[in-house]
């Protein structure tokens, strides 16, 4: 395609920017503003790619392909599908917000910090556009390296243990994926995702699932999650839970589901069980968590469970809902983590017991937190509700029990999110809340309001994503039950042309 | 008759070889060990002769038993007698393991030979008169093994430099 360079630019531009801010001997302010500028231009590039993307045409678009090493048929092959376009958009937006927040909050060693953030942007975008298994893996791992530093250097007191756990755990999962990639690629004769056919091997499938399940994380493989989310700086936690976890969900979608129709059918039930467990388990732990980050972290676990539930419904509703929910949860958890960061800055604690009463005299904080919070608990009408509804409606077609579990989770989500909102905003001021804790500053609003505004826009029009993610014919019903009315869907497969 | 003589010589040399070998390993005094090694080398030279390796036998005596061992004795003399008891020191499993491993290797060699005797090892090929003589060896060194010959000299040069580097300690030792 003629516009393939744009995809490459989306990867390389932030990386180049990262190297630039890292190498140029700029002063702190200049570094931050340059990085932010790069991040915003990146958003512009993404908007340009949306403009050039033809949503009515199925298949890969804005693609570019160059051979990398030919004897094993590995190539640099990038391009967009509808859903990857949205996930890339989520990435650039959240990263821009994170950089903006960091710029406001101020970080030590800014050159390295912003350099890594920008490089991270490129790497994550790379994950979403890679159309070659090995390239995907390269970006997948490359994404982890900046994160390792971002958590490990700029994190909180327990960061060393947190990073160790996070990186080694997730990489152990990824390495199983590497084994699967090799086996799949060599047995297919090509590593290209678009050209290769499907595979019926359970083991290869499980290798991929291992990587994605750890990264997402899927219960009970989330051991890295609480500490990583607690010890990171807020903007990094935002990126981790908002974007990086989506890479895993994307992996489920792009590789696990679309390349392994038979194994998906075989393993659907166990995976759905884990996802449902994660949904309830995460919700309950979020309800019991003593601190802000804990609530958001475990709610992320729950949300990832929900998304996986939708993906493995493998039908129109489930898949579209999952993609929508990926974007939603990305924006929501980014907003919430940044807010948590702002609150922690003001009170130097995230303990819910020490907070409270922050609504009085802080209307902006109260409004933003309330808005983000009620969207997070998927109040009907919010985009998160749309996603959740579609996911559960989708998975309901697989079995009513899944949706019943999801319904329980709806109630639990209300419980933990309201607990969070109340503990921060309402009742008498907590012991850590003093008058010196000001309302959100304009700079913070500048970061948060666009995120919330996006959420509101999506709430008005969730179909912006669900209508523009998959070609209409991508979900194929391979066997019909012959029931009346609208065809229910026990055996679907996702075919990405 | 000649065969009996050869056998007799072989048996004597072999037992000398065995005995001196064991002696090298078991003498607690390095000096005696070194002397035993000379005996071992000499007895090996006899065996080489029996195997028609005349040049090698000569070199064994001249170079090995002569030059190299003299150097050894020199160093031993220089350092003084430092005896250490064999079988002593170190963890007990070390000694046990050592005996087991050595015995295992030996048994394996014997087994290998045993497996092989039914095969071809018993028929020796006839050799011509030059076999093993300096002429033959010299020819080989200048033709087929020219490179090996040259490399050997290089290794010796390296070793010589090493000896100088490691041995010259003018700067050190108060």
């Amino acid at each position, binding site marked *: 395609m003629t516009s393939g360079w744009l995809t490459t630019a989306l990867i390389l531009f932030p990386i180049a920017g990262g190297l630039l801010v890292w190498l140029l001997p700029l002063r702190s302010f200049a570094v931050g503003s340059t990085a932010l500028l790069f991040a915003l231009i990146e958003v512009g590039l993404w908007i340009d790619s949306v403009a050039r993307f033809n949503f009515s045409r199925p298949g890969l678009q804005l693609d570019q392909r160059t051979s990398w090493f030919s004897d094993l048929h590995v190539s640099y092959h990038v391009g967009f599908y509808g859903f990857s376009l949205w996930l890339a958009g989520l990435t650039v937006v959240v990263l821009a917000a994170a950089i903006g927040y960091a710029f406001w909050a101020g970080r030590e060693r800014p050159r390295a910090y912003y350099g890594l953030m920008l490089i991270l942007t490129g790497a994550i975008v790379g994950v979403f556009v890679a159309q070659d298994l090995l390239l995907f893996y390269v970006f997948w791992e490359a994404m982890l390296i900046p994160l390792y530093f971002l958590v490990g250097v700029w994190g909180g007191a327990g960061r060393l243990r947190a990073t160790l756990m996070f990186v080694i755990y997730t990489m152990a999962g990824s390495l199983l994926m590497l084994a699967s990639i090799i086996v799949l690629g060599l047995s297919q004769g090509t590593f290209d995702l678009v050209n290769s056919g499907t595979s019926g091997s359970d083991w290869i499938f499980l290798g991929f699932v291992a990587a994605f399940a750890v990264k997402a994380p899927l219960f009970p493989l989330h051991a890295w999650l609480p500490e990583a989310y607690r010890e990171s700086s807020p903007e990094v936690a935002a990126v981790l839970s908002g974007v990086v976890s989506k890479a895993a969900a994307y992996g489920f979608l792009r590789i696990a589901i679309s390349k392994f129709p038979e194994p998906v059918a075989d393993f659907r039930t166990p995976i759905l069980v884990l996802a449902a467990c994660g949904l309830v388990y995460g919700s*309950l732990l979020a309800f019991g*968590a003593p601190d802000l980050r804990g609530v958001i972290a475990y709610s992320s676990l729950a949300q990832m469970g929900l998304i996986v539930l939708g993906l493995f419904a493998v039908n129109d509703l489930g898949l*579209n809902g999952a993609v929508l929910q990926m974007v939603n949860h990305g924006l929501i958890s980014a907003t919430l983590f940044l807010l948590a960061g702002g609150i922690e800055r003001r009170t130097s604690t995230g303990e819910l017991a020490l907070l409270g009463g922050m609504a009085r005299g802080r209307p902006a904080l109260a*409004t933003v937190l309330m808005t983000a919070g009620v969207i997070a608990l998927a109040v009907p009408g919010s985009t998160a509700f749309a996603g959740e*509804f579609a996911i559960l409606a989708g998975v309901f077609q697989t079995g009513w029990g899944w949706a019943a579990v999801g319904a329980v989770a*709806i109630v639990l989500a209300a*419980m933990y999110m309201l*607990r969070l909102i109340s503990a921060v905003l309402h009742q008498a001021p907590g012991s850590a809340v003093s008058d010196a804790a000001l309302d959100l500053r304009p700079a913070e609003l500048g970061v948060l309001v666009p995120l919330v505004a996006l959420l509101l826009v999506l709430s008005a029009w969730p*179909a912006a994503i669900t209508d523009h993610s998959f070609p209409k014919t991508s979900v194929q019903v391979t066997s019909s039950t012959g029931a009346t009315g609208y065809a229910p869907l026990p055996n679907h497969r996702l075919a990405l042309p | 008759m000649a065969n009996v003589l050869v056998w007799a010589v072989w048996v004597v040399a072999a037992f000398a070889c065995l005995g001196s070998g064991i002696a090298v390993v078991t003498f607690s005094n390095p000096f005696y060990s070194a002397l035993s090694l000379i005996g071992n080398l000499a007895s090996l030279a006899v065996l080489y002769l029996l195997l028609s390796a005349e040049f090698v036998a000569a070199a064994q005596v001249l170079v090995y038993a002569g030059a190299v061992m003299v150097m050894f004795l020199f160093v031993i003399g220089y350092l003084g007698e430092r005896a250490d008891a064999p079988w002593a020191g170190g963890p007990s499993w070390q000694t046990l393991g050592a005996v087991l491993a050595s015995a295992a*290797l030996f048994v394996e060699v014997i087994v290998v030979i045993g497996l092989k005797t039914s095969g071809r090892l018993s028929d020796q090929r006839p050799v011509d008169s030059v076999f093993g003589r300096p002429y033959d060896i010299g020819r080989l060194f200048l033709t087929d093994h020219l490179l090996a010959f040259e490399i050997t000299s290089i290794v010796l040069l390296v070793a010589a430099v090493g000896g100088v580097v490691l041995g010259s300690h003018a700067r050190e030792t108060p």
Partner: protein
Amino acid sequence: MIAAAWICLLAPLGAALAITLAGTRITRRGAGYLATASVAASFVAAVVAFALLLGDSPEERSHPSTLWSWLTAGQLDFGLRILVDPLSVFMMLVVAGVGSLIVAYSIGYMDGDDEERRYFAYMALFVFSMLLLVQGGNLLVLLVGWGLVGLSSYLLIGFWHDRPSAVAAAKKAFVMNAIGDATMALALFVVIQRSGSLDFETVFTHTGSLGGGWAVNLIALGLLGGAVAKSAQLPLQTWLPDAMEGPTPVSALIHAATMVTAGVYLIARTHPLFEAAPRVLELAAGLGAATLVVAGLIALVQTDIKRVIAYSTMSQIGYMFLAVGLGAYANGMFHLMTHAFFKALLFMAAGIVIHALAGEQDIRKMGGLRRLMPFTYIAFGVGALSLAGVPPFSGFFSKDSILAAALAHGWYGQILWVAGMIGAFLTGLYAFRLFFVVFWGEPSGFVREHLLKDSHGHAGEGPLSMTLTVGVLTVLAAIGGWLQFARVWTPVSDWLEPAARPLVEATGTQEAVSSVLAVALGLAGILVAWLVYSAGRVQAPRLAAVQALLEHKFYVDELYDRAFYRPAVLLAAGLGRFVEQPLVLGSVRGLVRSMRELGLGTGRVQTGLVRTYALSIAASVAVVTVVFLAVR
């Protein structure tokens, strides 16, 4: 007509957004005016829509309109769709009409609160949500409105967020409603699976093919769950009394006139689905009957003025459920309307009292307000009479037609009819207990302290915005019922006929019997109330156990606390302590530790002894040789 409907829907949303975004650039009073104006605009638009709809022939009074696709998935497409038909217009009129009065009333009531802007934004948001609920053209939009009213209810109950009780009540309300939302969502999933659409017309035409049996019952049960939660019927009733923590106009608007009656609207709206599952419909009627009795009983012992009214609301909604559950949709909707009038009136009058008494809500501290607040006294009196179903006030017309419909519904209906009759007596009793205790007798010390000092500098009955709106509602409560007199004059039923054709039609005799008996019982209740609470002729029977049972609202709160909330908390803590830490985190840490142990083990073999190293080579070579010789 469509445009009018959209204007009606979006005007309050615009006001809410404008107030939020304007921040401090708009005055507090300005926010109030803006909100009032927007709701009034909605009302006007609703009237216009009504007038235009009137012009259509009854069979063609159904006009859907889709703004855009809200949620899509492959072939499925759920639009942002409204439906203008008699039922929705009826509700639009009630909601926007009563709403505009209450919002206007708030201008006076909330005057001086330092977060007035937030209040009016929330109020406008609520009206928008409620209108979205009633105008929704498919089940999804209805569910969205359904959830949004829950949200705005949460926001408004917890408006005074520094009160822990208010925050707790708000959370409780939201969570209980979330349960209803969840069951509704489940019902919708079945609908999607069976019909591939959520648009009312499509779904209803598919009702036949929904397949009998579990599917249709599940749908109806799910919807009923939502209705029960939203309308505070048994068994999800516990949130409503607590919701009285919110400002009184909120109680009037949300927890009396509009939101809590949404369940009734829902059943009327989706009646084809319920009719396909008649057992569920009967269950709804039964729940309504049970609620109306239980709530009436509890109301007898409450001491908080607003809580008494709240229980009466539950009780009255019980009547409505009874009606729609028996298929008398128009009767239910009619009672919904009159109830909106007199219940809003009662709340607002109570609000004037509370306002005058500096926020005090305990009736035991009140008394003798009759002379001090004559206007309020009259208004409250009209409301109470209407509530008790005394002719010619509005409640009489609507309630009695419900009872008549019950009588017409066979043996099941007749059982419920008995419950309704008991309820009528209870209604008279608790309504006038409240009335006599608060207004009659001599002013208590507390009352004197507040009113005689005239600390507000006002006549004690609030500013014009309050009195005027209460006045309007008094009139409506008095004469609103004249819109329909069953079997003689039935414009409401006729209007609603195309949208919800009734299943029962009471005969004239049934109407008459019900009316006479109900009025008699209501008057009896009033008489008993007078005897006990005003004249003091009769001592209320002291049955400690019953008293405690009623004061603790049948221990339902405690039951739910023990059965659901505490287990959830314990489960959360237990999972954290016994699963998360030892299993999920511990397993990984244990793995790392064992790896390190193994590493240390290899270090121990690495003795530093060169002989060991040689031994390892010799032994390995020996092993390899053996293996080679063995397998060669």
